[in-house]
């Protein structure tokens, strides 16, 4: 990963045409230049040249970005805004240290069996005291105003048993090397935090689908958080350590391919892991090798395993709209595969919403640094979902699922939120 002082050329590529104002979710909500990619690039430029320091105003505007990448995709000059903002955040953390709550969390997420895992298990028992059920299966609403949580915020309940602790998943740990269907690859499943702590059924369903498609699945032990939250907040030390752990866990799995049901984890493992480890040529080479084997569940099923659906629609049809996670559509270029899966679902009809690629507002740590802004963006998304008239909004990222549920709940929209694999 390039430090900020090596990105001067990239920063200077911005000619301040303002095209990015039309694509940025925060500009859409706040309207002002300081909340636009052009404004942020100008601020980083001024910071790099010593014109301004690490002031609160600078950091506030820098952290308002969701790192969704819409500006980069639409920039006529191809300015790599995401790298500029990520490096600027990293430099800020390097000079000032990470915010305490975040740094503690990241330290824990390096090892799912460690302190965070134990803390979360305790939290699971206590969550009934603090939260009440919002509506059937939607999530929990805090009973009181809580620090870091706030009042009335929809929190996903922690899973009864975490994915990596499920007995059947533990059994998969040893299944490496078992033969699959002739010509079908051996697949290692990477869970990620969202699937592990909050939505184990997405993991179970994914594993089931991979097996149904004829491959042999293992769930390698020792996997850590993908590092994307730490990377987004600028905590590169934490992100690097996670990258190293995952590299070892995934390498030693010996699998042909590595699957994940989380768009963010997929992007993290494919692109950010090698970038984080690029300082060490040996590690970088190994990371690139592993990265080349990583697949999102949708591309794995369709392209690698030739999955052709569960077969047999039940008469009644469910209208499904699809939300493109930034880390799948823009970052991995996967727009069609998840839609194909939806079309294969039982009795599902795909109906596009307006601007399906608009960020849900969670990304880049915005949910933690500016929850209100993050929810305003989610509100725009909720409006588009509502207007689509769909019964279900499907997506391919646990982070987006959490955010969409919260945003829809706030907007009083009844649409159900599901992971694409749940439709199959």
């Amino acid at each position, binding site marked *: 990963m390039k430090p900020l002082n090596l990105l001067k050329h990239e920063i*200077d*590529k911005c*000619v*301040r*045409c*303002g*095209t*990015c*104002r*039309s694509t940025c979710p925060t500009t859409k909500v706040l*309207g*002002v*230049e*300081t909340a*636009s990619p052009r*404004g942020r690039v*100008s*601020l980083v*430029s*001024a910071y790099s*040249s010593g*014109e*301004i320091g690490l*002031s609160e*105003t*600078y950091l506030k*505007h820098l952290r308002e970005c969701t790192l969704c990448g819409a500006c980069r995709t639409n*920039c*006529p*000059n*191809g300015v790599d805004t995401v790298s500029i903002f990520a490096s600027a955040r990293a430099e800020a953390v390097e000079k000032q240290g990470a915010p305490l709550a975040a740094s503690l969390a990241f330290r824990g997420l390096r090892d799912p069996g460690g302190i965070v895992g134990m803390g979360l298990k305790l939290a699971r028992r206590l969550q009934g005291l603090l939260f009440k059920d919002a509506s059937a299966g939607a999530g929990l609403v805090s009973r009181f105003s809580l620090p870091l949580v706030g009042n009335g915020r929809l929190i996903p309940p922690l899973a009864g048993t975490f994915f990596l602790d499920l007995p059947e998943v533990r059994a998969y740990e040893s299944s490496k090397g078992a033969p699959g269907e002739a010509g079908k690859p051996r697949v290692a499943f990477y869970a990620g935090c969202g699937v592990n702590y909050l939505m184990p059924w997405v993991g179970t369903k994914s594993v089931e689908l991979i097996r149904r498609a004829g491959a042999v699945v293992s769930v390698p032990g020792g996997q850590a958080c993908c590092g994307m939250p730490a990377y987004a907040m600028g905590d590169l030390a934490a992100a690097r350590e996670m990258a190293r752990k995952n590299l070892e866990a995934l390498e030693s799995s010996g699998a042909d391919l590595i699957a994940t049901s989380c768009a963010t984890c997929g992007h993290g493992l494919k692109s950010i892991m090698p970038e984080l480890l690029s300082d060490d040529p040996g590690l970088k080479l190994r990371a690139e090798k592993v990265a080349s084997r990583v697949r999102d569940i949708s591309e794995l099923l369709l392209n690698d395993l030739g999955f052709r659906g569960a077969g047999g629609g039940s008469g009644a049809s469910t209208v499904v709209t699809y939300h493109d996670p930034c880390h799948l559509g823009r970052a991995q270029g996967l727009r069609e595969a998840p839609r194909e899966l939806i079309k294969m679902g039982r009795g599902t009809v795909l109906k596009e919403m307006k601007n399906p690629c608009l960020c849900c507002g969670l990304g880049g740590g915005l949910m933690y640094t500016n929850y209100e802004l993050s929810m305003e963006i989610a509100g725009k998304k909720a409006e588009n979902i509502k207007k689509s008239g769909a019964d279900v909004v499907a997506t391919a990222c646990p982070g987006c699922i959490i955010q969409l549920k919260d945003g829809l709940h706030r907007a009083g929209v009844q649409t159900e939120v599901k992971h694409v694999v749940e439709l199959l």
Partner: protein
Amino acid sequence: MLTNVVKHGLERIVGEANCSFSKEELLCYSYDATNTLHQPDAVVFPSGPEEVSLVLKMANSEGFPVVPRGAGTGFSGGSLPVGGGVVLSFERMRNILEIDTENMVAIVEPGVVTWDLQQAVEKLGLFYPPDPSSLKFSTIGGNIAECAGGPRAVKYGVTRDYVLGLEAVLPTGEIINTGVRTAKGVVGYDLTRLLVGSEGTLGVVTKAVLKLLPLPETTTTMLALFPDLRDAARATSAIIRARIIPSTLEIMDSVSIKCVEGFAKTGLPEAEALLLIEVDGHKAAVETEAEAVRRVCLENGAGEFRTASDRNEVKDLWKARRAVSAALYKARPGKINEDIVVPRSRIPDLVDGLRGISERHGVLIASFGHAGDGNIHVNIMHDRKSQAEAALAAAEDVFRLAVGLGGTISGEHGVGSAKSRYLDMELKPDAIAAMKRIKEAFDPKGILNPGKIFPGPGPQKRAPAGAGYAESK
């Protein structure tokens, strides 16, 4: 620099949350699409005409410049605070107040993004035609101030043709209403037309009454490729001669095509020139006209002719077209972007003239734009360090060429601070003097957007094009 009295006064007028003096915020309001930087002393976000009025009254009594700003995406420096002072940003005033479908009128605040208005009225079967390339991010207020044009101008005219009336604040603080919200109106001087295109020097628009049209039933988008730029230019004249008025008749030369292809990846094939042509209206008429366009293009040397088959293809073609201006920086780091206009019939002469200028000064010239109405964006691409002088000399020659062919030095970008030194190449001294008297009558103290349109005293020096932050310090 503003005194503390002025700062507190501004805070009282718009509220502390809606005004800023911090270095970081000021930086973000110091540039526009010319990529030159002039830092203001304050940024103020008014919510209505009363607040604008109070700010302007204070500017008169305390003596500081006020510069209105929409999205900051202009190409002539119209929204740059060249002498410091207060930037009035209309980013908070972005409501569409009314769409009157029966009378086909829309009433909007100045901060509404043009594209958002178009989307809103098109849902109701109506049409707001002005479409500057920046339409997805520039605002109605800025479009009015600069009298923005766009590809559709060849058939539908420019922003001024759609402004029926305005609510504006005069530089001395009075809030006035101009024009009408009816189809006709001749009572008094036409202050609406005076304000449109006045580059924010005569008044600050706080509300606009805009004329709408019925949305055309259908549009056909076509692409013609030519082995020579001159052939494309000839085809342009031939289409108009055939009594067809396309809704769009855009030209791109090979440099523009190459630069934009890397970004949009629309598969624009390698060609020396292309025409992007649209015809719109009733289905039967569109079919006949499209066929005629095809015939004329092939007769005039088009090597290939295509009709876009679906909406995505059309979207991609326009994405490419709108990205040209910014993408040209890939060819050379320095760009002087001029938007001259010549009578349509003289475009082939213009093409020849530009070739000569390019050779004479050793700079790369990329041309694209609205061939249908003779408005060509001439981009002098150069190395900022070694070729700055040559590029400026070339720009002057381009203006001379345009005026010599019976044209104008700016079709839709405005004069602003970028072109004021060339004003007298086109206008006679008496005309400039008359304009200055108008400015003085409206703004006796010269507080509203000073340093624009009219050259200041002393020798005029043009800022180097695309001078980024580092260079301007």
